[in-house]
């Protein structure tokens, strides 16, 4: 089976969909001839043609607005916002238009667009190339928000997103495009080679939206994570020496509430890990859901480990980034409660 990094897996998904569905087209800043600043659309224009994968003006609102219009016509546009930090000029289009078109037109019109956007820190990108804005999308009813953590899921989730008839935002953790990252920034870089999830089948397959993956089974504590933090969580669990169950949520909306509840009812403890700043983050919603549905099973307060409530500081990237050490501390607090 071919071994791919996440960039190649995403590229392969786009290639498959362009080849198989004439209604799929790709556009965004620098995605055409150049193939995208992270190379995710590399070669697609040359292979599939100028009108299937093309550059746009620098206007994120315009990119999303035209994608909605194309979607309403019957196409399945896949657009790239170069960095998630730059999606905000398109926010009105996402919130007021894409997310509500189906509802307000009583199903006459809908917007089956897919928005791909690299997010997250750990690349010394400073405050405008590092943010994790998932919670501002998960709060919007009508938007689906998906976060892959490995090449296999990236391809399967992207194909499922493109085929989905509702707007889907795929937040691509750019820190793990080229290799898994466990938060130990001072250790040698790893590539995806040898990782079981880097084996990516040819052809179309789907990872369904709304299905979490159990990355590691355990009895004593549940860890909820997504994106880069899945790898940080694995490292933290090993270092803490606890028998933790790790769920990779993969899809935040729709959310696999059954998998979360089943795990926490089994373990009785829950730690939530995300890179975004803590206050108002997606961890708050997860914490509330677990408390509401698992209260009688909880043996310890739910812990949240997250980025600090500051902008992402360039010099203090690794002080901001919630690495394994902070997860270990939270796991121990929960276990010793």
């Amino acid at each position, binding site marked *: 089976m071919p071994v791919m990094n996440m960039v190649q897996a995403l590229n392969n998904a786009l290639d498959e969909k362009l080849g198989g569905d004439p209604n799929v087209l790709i556009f965004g*800043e620098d995605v055409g001839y150049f193939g995208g600043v992270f190379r995710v659309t590399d070669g697609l224009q040359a292979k599939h043609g100028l009108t299937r994968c093309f550059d746009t003006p620098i*206007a994120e609102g315009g990119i999303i607005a035209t994608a909605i219009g194309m979607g309403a016509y019957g196409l399945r546009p896949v657009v790239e916002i170069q960095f998630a930090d730059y999606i905000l*000029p398109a926010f009105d289009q996402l919130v007021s238009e894409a997310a509500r078109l189906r509802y307000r037109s009583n199903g006459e019109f809908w917007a089956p667009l897919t928005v791909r956007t690299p997010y997250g820190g750990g690349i010394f990108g400073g405050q405008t190339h590092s943010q994790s804005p998932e919670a501002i999308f998960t709060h919007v009813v009508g938007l689906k928000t998906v976060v892959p953590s490995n090449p296999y899921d990236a391809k399967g989730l992207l194909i499922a997103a493109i085929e989905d008839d509702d707007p889907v935002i795929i937040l691509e953790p750019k820190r793990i495009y080229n290799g898994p990252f466990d938060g130990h920034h001072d250790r040698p870089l790893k590539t995806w080679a040898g990782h079981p999830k880097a084996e990516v089948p040819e052809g179309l397959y789907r990872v369904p939206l709304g299905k979490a993956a159990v990355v590691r089974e355990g009895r004593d504590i549940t860890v909820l994570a997504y994106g880069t933090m899945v790898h940080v969580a694995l490292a933290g669990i090993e270092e803490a020496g606890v028998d933790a169950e790790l769920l990779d949520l993969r899809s935040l909306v729709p959310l696999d509430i059954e998998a979360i509840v089943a795990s926490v009812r089994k373990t009785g403890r829950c730690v939530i890990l995300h890179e975004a700043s803590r206050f108002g983050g997606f961890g708050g919603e997860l914490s509330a859901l677990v408390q509401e549905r698992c209260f009688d099973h909880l043996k310890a307060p739910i812990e949240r480990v997250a980025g600090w409530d500051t902008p992402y500081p360039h010099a203090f990237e690794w002080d901001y980034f919630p690495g394994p050490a902070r997860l270990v501390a939270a796991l121990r607090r929960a276990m010793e409660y």
Partner: protein
Amino acid sequence: MDNQPRLTLHIPEPPARPGDHPDFGGMKLPKAGETARPDVDAAEPTMRDMPFGMIRVLDDGHHAVGPWDPHLDVDILHRGLRAMMLTRAFDDRLFRAHRQGKTSFYMKSTGEEAIAVAQSLMLGARDMCFPTYRVVGWLMARNYPLLDLVNQIFSNAGDPLRGRQLPILYSARDYGFYSISGNLGSRFGHAVGWAMASAYKGDDRIALAYVGEGTTAEGGFHEAITFASVYRAPVILCVTNNQWAISSFSGIAGANETTFAAKALAYGIPGLRVDGNDFLAVWAATQWAAERARLNLGATLIELFTYRASGHSTADDPAKYRPADEALQWPLGDPIERLKGHLIALGEWDDERHAALQSALEDEVRAAVRAGEAIGTLGKSKPELASMFEDVFKQPDWRVIEQRREMGV
């Protein structure tokens, strides 16, 4: 219906890609001195041809010609040349510092130095520039300390922005230089608001703002010009058309259909198109717009026509998306060479002095980089960790106070 042609989707493409010969054949450039100069207080409807001409002063023989010749003192020309050369020497040295792993990122303004330098020298100390990431020449022209730039680039203990920003996203209020963000076009409206505030307060200060041609697609660009026009804000709105937005040629921003200066027409403000590699032309057009603004006649849009001779940043290789020798073929030449040629033509400069100045500036940059390295390159030295939690608000709230304690600082 049967007689109707099938619709086709048009996607513009640049005239040349890697492997092709650079092609500037479609570019129609007026000669130096050819474009007329309207009176500063002329009514906007009388100058609607300006966006389709080009203000050029230096001719091919390096002489200043025509109605836009600003007749500058030789001292200004020398200061301009020095600041442009310093900008280039600094860019080259710090770009190398990135390659050596001393910092995370860098962006050069190579080929565009005349723009920020001429405008910085032309405007007053109390005016405010709303910069892009490619106008460090503004600070060079105002003798901003090189060591502070280096420290910012290294995010070290001497960083005047305390490690908060990506390298080169400076802020220097005392030098008339507003805080830069990585977002595009989001400060164009700030410049208009700042200028409106100056008018509201009855002051005499004006603002100048930059975007690249690619950013004219952003809503923020159009919103800002609308406000500038409606309120006759004393602001100079500049579009640096350097032909490339990362890998996208200017046609992706609409350059095949009209000029960027012509965007002004729809908003009813003057639109000037200027040879951005001509120090004298940039000066003269800026002076015209500044005088007009100070006369309460409102905003001017200036397209500065230039070429981004370097890559977008340290993160891209321009030879992957455009002919590698395209910069060398740029019909409007190199701004430093052209001002140097002009000074030589005036009898005020020669190759020997130029080489000596180049060497002295390289020494100055080297000394600043060494001083910055002595404090520490990226990661080797940091501002005080607790400062990470400051300035989220003026007064920290309980969240950051608790989190700072959790970190133990």
